[in-house]
């Protein structure tokens, strides 16, 4: 009878542990890597499912077989590196905490979008843009959508200064593409981060199914030993 009592007590222990896993900020134990394309490079961080970042972990970035960069993560578990053009193969980042945790994230070559190809010469559609147009894409905080609608003829020189001035030189197609890509990347980044975190979340249903699968196995074991006699 006492044995039954202790089994019951232990039965109560496991749901308690389960709820602990759900309620407290600490949770699962597993290393994951979050990486995203940022401008001409890749930035991201490692995280443990449920909390904690690996500081001082070794990271290594590869494109196919060639090593692009290596380093150690900072106090936030973050890393960043530039990716040379053209991007010919998927870029992988491997994190190693040097105590047995290893995790990898892969960015397909397609993720690098227009950046993947070497910068094409100016598209024919653009009105003969002068020196400033050859500069790298301007900072993304300019109100990009207004630019293409402006009358292109006047070709004001000097940097594109946003504001309300109507005569803005229309940027070339690759520039627009770069601007749009930068804006989309900036908007999507928090979503990607959230998806990665949700992916790595522990789900109550999963934990419960694990516990009950184990108990079910015990039942099957008991049935099998009972049948043998």
């Amino acid at each position, binding site marked *: 009878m*006492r*044995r039954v009592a*202790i*089994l019951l007590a*232990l*039965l109560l*222990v*496991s749901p308690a*542990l*389960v709820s*602990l*896993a759900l309620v*407290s900020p*600490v*949770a*699962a*134990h*597993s*290393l994951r890597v979050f990486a995203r394309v940022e401008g001409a490079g890749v930035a991201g961080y490692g995280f*443990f*499912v*449920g*909390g*904690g*970042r*690996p*500081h*001082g*972990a070794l990271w290594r970035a590869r494109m196919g077989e060639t090593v692009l960069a290596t380093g150690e993560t900072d106090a936030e578990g973050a890393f960043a590196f530039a990716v040379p053009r053209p991007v010919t193969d998927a870029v992988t980042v491997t994190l*190693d*905490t*040097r*105590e*047995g*945790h*290893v*995790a990898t994230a892969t960015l397909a070559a397609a993720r690098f979008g227009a950046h993947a190809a070497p910068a094409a010469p100016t598209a024919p559609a653009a009105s003969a843009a002068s020196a400033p147009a050859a500069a790298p894409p301007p900072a993304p905080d300019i109100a990009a959508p207004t630019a293409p609608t402006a009358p292109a003829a006047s070709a004001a020189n000097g940097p594109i200064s946003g504001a309300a001035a109507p005569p803005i030189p229309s940027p070339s197609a690759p520039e627009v593409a770069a601007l749009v890509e930068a804006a989309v990347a900036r908007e999507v980044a928090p979503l990607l981060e959230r998806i990665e975190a949700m992916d790595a979340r*522990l789900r109550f249903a*999963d*934990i419960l*199914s*694990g*516990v009950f*699968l*184990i*108990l079910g*196995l*015990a039942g099957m*074991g*008991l049935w099998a*030993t*009972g049948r043998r006699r």
Partner: protein
Amino acid sequence: MAHIPDGVLSAPVLVGGGVLAALGVGWALRRIDDRAIPRTAILSAVFFAGSLVAVPVGPSSVHLLFSGVMGVMLGVGIVPAVLVALLLQAMLFGFGGLTTLGVNTLDIAGPGLVAGLLFGPAIRHAASAARASLLAGIAGALVALGTGGMVAAALWLSASDYVPLARVLAATYLPLAFAEGMIAAVIVGFLRKVQPEALEPRLAPRGA
């Protein structure tokens, strides 16, 4: 930590770990009887849920293993208990991997089994609950360090790029060993007072 992912270890280490774990499971299944099954399952469930709970410690993150307690309470039954829990953790949460299942089982159950065999009799026959508790604490701490050592050895034997650094291992496993020892001491001390038979692995006699 004790969940080594796929693609890190070399084939001989994976096969060796798998074979040893299979032998352990075979040995356990021959000796397990219907009195031992519920207890094995419940401790397996405790390990399954408990080792999902991780706390950030220093540069890394650790979780409890309960393998010292399991070794004392289950004897060789610890091997299937750990195997089943790890299999479910790999399938449901992607912790560890399917190819490394054998090695991971060995890393966790091996030290627990050894501790159960070495410390178990002394814990059961200890004069007082405090003494049993102390012995269990020592066993629990040693088991955590043993697991750390075995994980490091598995990576080192694979001659992989991921051989752990002693400095990082120590920073991770010493706090874990302390916590593991405390937990084992509390659980065993409590069981010794209220249910001393629980500390006896109820296995069928050899060959039964």
